[in-house]
């Protein structure tokens, strides 16, 4: 088995060298293999038995020596630098050294280095402590502390396969194995051979490899050069094939892997050993092999079962996705068919890809199968409303297809299957996949009704405008007429203004005559009184100074003169009073009439009259008026009542009032002389008297004053009476 693989290796080496040479003949000018060069090799101190140091700290080991031999075979001198694996690995990547003697060829390293043909295949193993019974397979490492050398292909393996959640790295494998021995690590993974060597060298009694194969950790070892250094690579390949062919490889192999057995054991012993050792060993191995095979079969079976389960899951997922897709499609179809708008899709050539129910109905097709795949322009959009042919190139549905932008149209027609057409509004939008336009979706609806309504509205609007124009004309006519009337009104206003001016002038004149009247009153009071005073005064002087010379008749004449002078004075006083009432302003306030009437009686009645007369005053409503003027009303009325009752038997004065919504009516009633009702309208005239002075003295001004005051308050006066039956005088004032 061993020699067989070596033979294969050899064949490969020869082939690859030949190929390299051929490549060099073709492209490279460098005469590889002819010149003597010195290259720098980097080795490790502790990768037994491949790379290690002897007692003098000189690098030795199988790989180092194989590299030397191979290099020497093609005329390369080798200088060796020693460093920890992580460091030298980096040196090569950076080009600080030219080659490494032993590098496992792993996928992770392919981009960094170039490899020679492999000269060695090593299997990985798990190393554990003997007293660690919990670890039997790779799977058991999941929660264990697994140590590897940093940057080693073992690290790449454990990380690649995610062997454990707790992966630690050390600089060298020595360190990792020592940690394992003292219990800091649960397992170390490395090549089987190297692990055994290390156990031996470090004399670790309690560390053993597990009897488990690691299929993912079978590494082929090669020399490595920097990526792209093909010249050196081909020379090393050539050297390697030379040392394999000339037996140096075998010698070195024997030196490092089999010297003890080779030297001590004789041929007879070999036979004996073969009989006594190898046969049972073979049997044991055979048994072990069977056990291993059964385990492997179980493992594979389990693995396959897992695979089956996984595939089943995937299959179910796919099924689910498919049914989901179907549901979605059904939903979309439902959505499409439930919209009132017609919707259809066309592909890049304008052929129908789908059409919803509304579209089928509108266009008069029984089912989608009648339209799918047919050119939609030719089917429904072929002719303009006026009968002209509608060329495909002009079709705006396709604009979306060609220009990649949505279009909106509302002035075209679609044709039904029965060759009738309808007015249509539609949107056409491109369907995109990435940068490609796959087709368009057209959404349309029948707008025949709308167009009809629009045209009706337009007609209505036109007729309305006509009406408006008519009405406007009528209104303008009316306005014109109104303007005329306004003109007439203006003239009237002008006339009115003139009248107003005239009235103002009249008023001014009136005011002037009022002033004149004032002046007249003043002079009446002043100038007319002087002669009266003289008449009266001098009559008295005559009576006083010449009494003895006058007889009785003479004295009576003088008395008459004096009395008339006095009466004249009273007339003047009353007249002035009357005119003053007309001229003075009315100052309005709230007046308690009950109190006022009572106080007036107290004021003007003599003591005798107060004793003789019965006065009845009802509760009188309050009124708004001029206090002084209304007081004069009561004075005159009560004075009259007293005067005209002076000769009567019944001496009673009643004062009362009636109230209505609009006015308050006050009255003073006596039981005196009364009057002839035929003359009741004359009662309130100035200087009008119904009695002689001999019966009842008076000037005839008192009632005129009352009437004037009441009129100035906006009220009215009247009287009722009969001769010798008493009289009632009423005055009404506006109410609240």
């Amino acid at each position, binding site marked *: 088995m061993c020699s067989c693989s070596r033979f294969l290796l050899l064949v490969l080496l020869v082939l690859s060298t030949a190929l390299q040479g051929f490549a060099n003949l073709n492209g490279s000018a460098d005469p590889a293999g002819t010149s003597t060069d010195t290259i720098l090799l980097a080795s490790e101190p502790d990768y037994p038995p491949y790379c290690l140091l002897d007692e003098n700290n000189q690098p030795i080991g199988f790989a180092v020596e194989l590299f030397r031999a191979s290099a020497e075979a093609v005329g390369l001198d080798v200088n060796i630098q020693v460093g920890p694996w992580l460091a030298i690995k980096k040196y090569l990547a950076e080009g600080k050294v030219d080659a490494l003697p032993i590098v496992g060829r792993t996928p992770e390293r392919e981009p960094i280095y170039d490899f020679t043909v492999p000269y060695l295949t090593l299997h990985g193993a798990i190393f554990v402590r003997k007293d660690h019974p919990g670890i039997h397979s790779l799977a058991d490492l999941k929660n264990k502390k697994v140590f590897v050398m940093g940057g080693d292909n073992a690290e790449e393996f454990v990380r690649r396969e995610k062997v454990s959640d707790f992966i630690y790295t050390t600089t060298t494998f020595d360190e990792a194995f020592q940690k394992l021995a003292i219990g800091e690590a649960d397992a170390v993974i490395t090549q089987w051979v190297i692990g055994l060597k290390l156990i031996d060298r470090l004399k670790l009694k309690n560390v053993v490899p597990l009897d488990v194969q690691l299929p993912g950790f079978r590494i082929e070892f090669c020399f490595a050069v920097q990526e792209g250094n093909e010249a050196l690579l081909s020379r090393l390949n050539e050297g390697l094939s030379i040392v394999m062919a000339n037996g140096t490889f075998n010698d070195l192999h024997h030196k490092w892997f089999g010297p003890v057995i080779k030297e001590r054991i004789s041929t007879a012993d070999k036979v004996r050993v073969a009989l006594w050792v190898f046969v049972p060993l073979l049997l044991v191995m055979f048994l072990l092999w069977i056990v291993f095979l059964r385990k492997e079969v179980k493992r594979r079976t389990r693995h396959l079962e897992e695979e089956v389960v996984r595939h089943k899951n995937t299959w179910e997922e796919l099924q689910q996705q498919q049914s989901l897709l179907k549901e979605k499609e059904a939903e979309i179809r439902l959505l499409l068919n439930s919209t009132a708008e017609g919707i259809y899709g066309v592909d890049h050539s304008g052929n129908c890809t789908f059409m919803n129910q509304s579209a089928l109905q509108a266009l008069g097709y029984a089912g989608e199968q009648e339209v799918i795949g047919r050119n939609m322009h030719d089917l429904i959009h072929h002719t303009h409303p006026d009968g002209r042919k509608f060329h495909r190139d002009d079709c705006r549905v396709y604009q979306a297809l060609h220009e990649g932008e949505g279009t909106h149209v509302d002035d075209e027609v679609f044709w039904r299957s029965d060759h009738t057409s309808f007015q249509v509004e539609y949107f056409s939008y491109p369907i995109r996949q990435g940068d490609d336009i796959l087709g368009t979706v057209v959404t349309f609806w029948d707008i025949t009704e709308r167009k009809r309504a629009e045209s009706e509205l337009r007609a209505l609007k036109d007729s309305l405008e006509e009406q408006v124009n008519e009405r406007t004309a009528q209104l303008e006519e009316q306005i014109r007429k109104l303007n005329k009337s306004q003109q007439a009104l203006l003239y009237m206003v002008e006339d009115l203004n003139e009248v107003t001016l005239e009235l103002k002038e009249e008023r001014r004149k009136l005011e002037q005559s009022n002033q004149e009247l004032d002046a007249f009153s*003043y002079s009446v009071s*002043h100038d007319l*009184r002087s002669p009266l*005073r003289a008449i009266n*005064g001098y009559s008295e*002087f005559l009576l006083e100074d010449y009494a003895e010379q006058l007889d009785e008749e003479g004295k009576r004449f003088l008395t008459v003169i004096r009395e008339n002078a006095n009466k004249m*004075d009273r007339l003047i006083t009353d007249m002035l009073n009357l005119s003053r009432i007309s001229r003075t302003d009315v100052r309005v306030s709230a007046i308690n009439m009950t109190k006022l009437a009572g106080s007036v009686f107290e004021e003007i009645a003599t003591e005798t009259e107060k004793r003789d007369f019965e006065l009845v005053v009802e509760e009188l409503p309050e009124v708004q008026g001029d206090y002084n003027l209304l007081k004069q009303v009561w004075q005159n009325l009560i004075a009259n009542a007293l005067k005209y009752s002076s000769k009567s038997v019944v001496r009673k004065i009643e004062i009362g009032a009636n109230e209505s919504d609009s006015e308050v009516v006050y009255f003073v009633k006596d039981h005196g002389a009364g009057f002839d009702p035929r003359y009741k309208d004359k009662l309130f005239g100035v200087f009008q008297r119904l009695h002689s002075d001999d019966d009842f003295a008076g000037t005839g001004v008192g009632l005129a004053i009352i009437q004037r005051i009441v009129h100035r308050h906006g009220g009215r006066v009247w009287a009722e009476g009969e001769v010798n039956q008493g009289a009632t005088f009423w005055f009404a004032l506006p109410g609240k």
Partner: protein
Amino acid sequence: MEPMNQVEILIVEDNPHDAEMALRALKKNNVSNQVLVVNDGEEALDFVFARGKFAGREKKFRPKIILLDLKLPKIDGLQVLKEIKSNPETKIIPVIMLTSSKEETDMVRSYQLGVNSYIVKPVDFSKFVEAVRDLGFYWLLLNQQPR
């Protein structure tokens, strides 16, 4: 003594009959003070301020009372009142207004100018006598002017 200096009552009255009646009323009340009657406002002021035809008079002898008619020729009663009452030397002289009527504006104006009292000349002479007695006496006899 200059007779004009002895005048105690000055009557300003343009109507000679009214003046006579005033004198008679005073007499009937036994008032015997020296009385002077002037006929218009100008004369009244000339007398009071000792000027014009009364220039020889000594101003310090002031009348005890002036009876002043409201309506006068030349300068009317209110103007005379105003001049007397606006001069510090003469404003202490009591002035009694004599008038024919109780016309409100006249009364109000007179009181504003500082009149001391007011008599409406009645047509009935006996009433005039009573009024002179009631008011004139008060000013002539009871009211002691500062000298």
